[in-house]
């Protein structure tokens, strides 16, 4: 046994001894992840005095466990009531909610938990093993390459628009326009703000998420007595349904593996994040599926892809933090502050000077995922009860607790009204056949796309050909092109096969 293996084993034992912190933190993370506005980052900020009072290892274990469980918790309301807890879970209801409406909420939760835990665990191990290589990904991804990554996410709009292309594109591009509100990144010129100072920083994401998904959904569900489509679908919760979901997920283990790796690679890129990863993973999953027509109707693979990917992001964001000292997201940035308070200096020297901290973060993540599957899976039978609460009680609860969540991040009353405005927009969109997810994708990715686009143009003095100036960028363009063209070719092949016409 060499030194590193011995060290890893020692770190594993030490981290496992903090189970009494990890288990309650998992439940806390599930709650904060499930309520829009209460991200893991906000909770760590709120509980920072507690974190600082803990030992270095205790604080580290607490933050990592909260980070992982909040990511998983965001998927629970997304599946049960069509309300993603965070933007990272915005692709989860596309197939999770239809399953819940069909009375398969318990199976959907189990699929989501298994995909999240296996995806998170696997990418943690890969990140630990391939850290030096992964850390270089951040160096190679410049603005031009990032534009292609964004376009991978935006191409999901085209998938969503498959049923009515024109309406899907209107929803997606309206989202992109809304995402452009705010000052421009170079000269800070206010654009489309209606004179509101609160919009100078752009449209805040949480009110958009709350309005488009939660408020509009609450106004829709009151048409029915219960969320499940037929009252006959309300089944008694049983272990059988839980294991059925586990079985469905495990049978698609390869799907979990490759979609979580998409999450890991995107997570390594600073600023990319879980929302892009889950959209890209969903889009790629649909593109290369043998049954793309089932996506959006409650297809397990459409649920596995975003959940595995957004949990793959959790380990990915730690890589630039530990190796380069660059936080990959908001939570990683807060972790950086807390750990620096404890005297930890990040960067290449971390694994030489304080290897236990570096390895300890990944070990805490791995142990959290293992403990999570055993603590959360049994709860899925009780959680699925949400779909059987009469909507006359559920709708007002959804509105009150999510609207106030829109207030929390910035403490502006304006954000409450903004969420209500997005709620009205979402309601009109749902009633008239426009997809709210397409609008949200635009709101999330619009400002990022513009930022990278402008950086590229500034770098090249306005020459648009800069987008095709790097080898990595060109490879990504080719991948994007293939991911758009190949599904059409596969679909044509399937159609010909089903018609018995030989392919020439």
């Amino acid at each position, binding site marked *: 046994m060499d030194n590193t293996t011995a060290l890893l084993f020692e770190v594993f034992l030490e981290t496992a001894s903090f189970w009494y912190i990890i288990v309650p933190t998992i439940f806390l993370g599930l709650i904060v992840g499930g309520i829009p506005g209460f991200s893991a980052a906000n*909770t760590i900020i*709120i509980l920072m005095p507690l974190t600082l009072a803990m030992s270095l290892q205790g604080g580290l274990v607490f933050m990592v466990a909260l980070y992982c469980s909040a990511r998983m918790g965001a998927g629970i309301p997304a599946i049960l009531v069509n309300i993603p807890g965070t933007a990272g879970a915005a692709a989860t209801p596309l197939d999770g909610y239809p399953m819940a409406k069909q009375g398969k909420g318990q199976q959907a939760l189990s699929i989501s938990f298994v995909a999240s835990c296996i995806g998170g665990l696997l990418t943690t191990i890969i990140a630990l093993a391939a850290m030096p290589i992964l850390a270089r990904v951040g160096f190679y991804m410049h603005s031009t390459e990032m534009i292609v990554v964004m376009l991978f996410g935006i191409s999901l709009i085209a998938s969503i628009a498959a049923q009515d292309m024109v309406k899907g594109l209107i929803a997606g*591009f309206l989202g*992109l*326009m809304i995402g452009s509100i705010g000052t421009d990144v170079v000269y800070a010129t206010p654009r489309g703000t209606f004179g509101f100072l609160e919009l100078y920083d752009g449209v805040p994401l949480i009110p958009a998420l709350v309005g488009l998904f939660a408020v509009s959904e609450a106004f829709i569900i009151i048409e029915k007595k219960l969320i499940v489509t037929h009252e006959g679908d309300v089944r008694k919760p049983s272990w059988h349904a839980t294991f059925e979901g586990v079985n469905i997920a495990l049978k698609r283990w390869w799907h979990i593996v490759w979609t979580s790796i998409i999450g890991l690679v995107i997570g390594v890129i600073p600023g990319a994040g879980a929302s892009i990863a889950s959209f890209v993973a969903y889009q790629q999953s649909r593109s290369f599926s043998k049954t793309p027509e089932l996506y959006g109707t409650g297809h397990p693979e459409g649920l596995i892809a975003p959940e595995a990917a957004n949990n793959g992001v959790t380990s990915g964001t730690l890589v630039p933090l530990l190796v380069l000292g660059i936080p990959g997201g908001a939570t990683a940035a807060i972790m950086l502050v807390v750990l620096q308070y404890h005297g930890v200096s990040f960067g290449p020297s971390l694994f030489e000077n304080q290897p236990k901290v570096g390895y300890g973060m990944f070990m805490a993540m791995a142990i959290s995922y293992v403990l999570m599957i055993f603590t959360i899976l049994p709860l899925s039978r009780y959680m699925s009860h949400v779909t059987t609460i009469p909507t006359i009680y559920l709708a*007002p609860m959804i509105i*009150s607790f999510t609207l*106030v969540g829109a207030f929390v991040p910035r403490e502006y009353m304006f954000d409450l009204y903004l969420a209500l405005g997005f709620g009205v927009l979402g309601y009109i969109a749902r009633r008239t056949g426009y997809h709210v997810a397409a609008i949200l994708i635009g709101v999330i990715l619009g400002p990022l796309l513009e930022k990278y686009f*402008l950086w590229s143009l500034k770098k090249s003095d306005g020459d648009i050909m800069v987008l095709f100036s790097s080898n990595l960028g060109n490879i990504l363009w080719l991948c994007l092109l293939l991911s758009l063209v190949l599904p059409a070719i596969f679909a044509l092949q399937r159609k010909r096969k089903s018609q018995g016409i030989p392919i020439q």
Partner: protein
Amino acid sequence: MTLKPDAPKRQLGGELVIPALAIAFTLYFFSTIWNSPWTAQVSAFLVGGILLFVCAIFLVRVALMLRSGQGTLGFGNLFTREDIRSGRIGLFATTIGYCVLIDRLGFTLTTFLFLSISMYVLSKGRNVGFITLISAIMALAGWAVFIWAFDTRFPRGWFETTMKAVLANG
């Protein structure tokens, strides 16, 4: 595309609301960047131009459908009598009230009032006792978890201030 003779016609008036909003917003957006530096314009003109183009395609499609009698300019998919019967309009009114009052009354009291009134509206006045009880429990649970335990930045009113003073003085 042909419709069966007895099939209901598409309510295209409702479907035009989002494109109309999109066109109006895009034109307003363009007006705000008309004299701005090119860095503020380039992306917005590109995205807005595509949006206007797609909306134009949709308008042409709607015109063709209207001409062939496949749809009407009705808003039946957006507003119906069901909105009054189901309590949707009442729920919307209480939601606006919630946004207005929460700044003055604080989270707990406003949540209690909102939950109880909206549930009364949706249940058409049935189960008044149960609704009052469940509204009180939810509002107090929200206060206990988010304000008392985690000190979250929820809007505060006299209830929160009073409870803080009571708890601080034992």
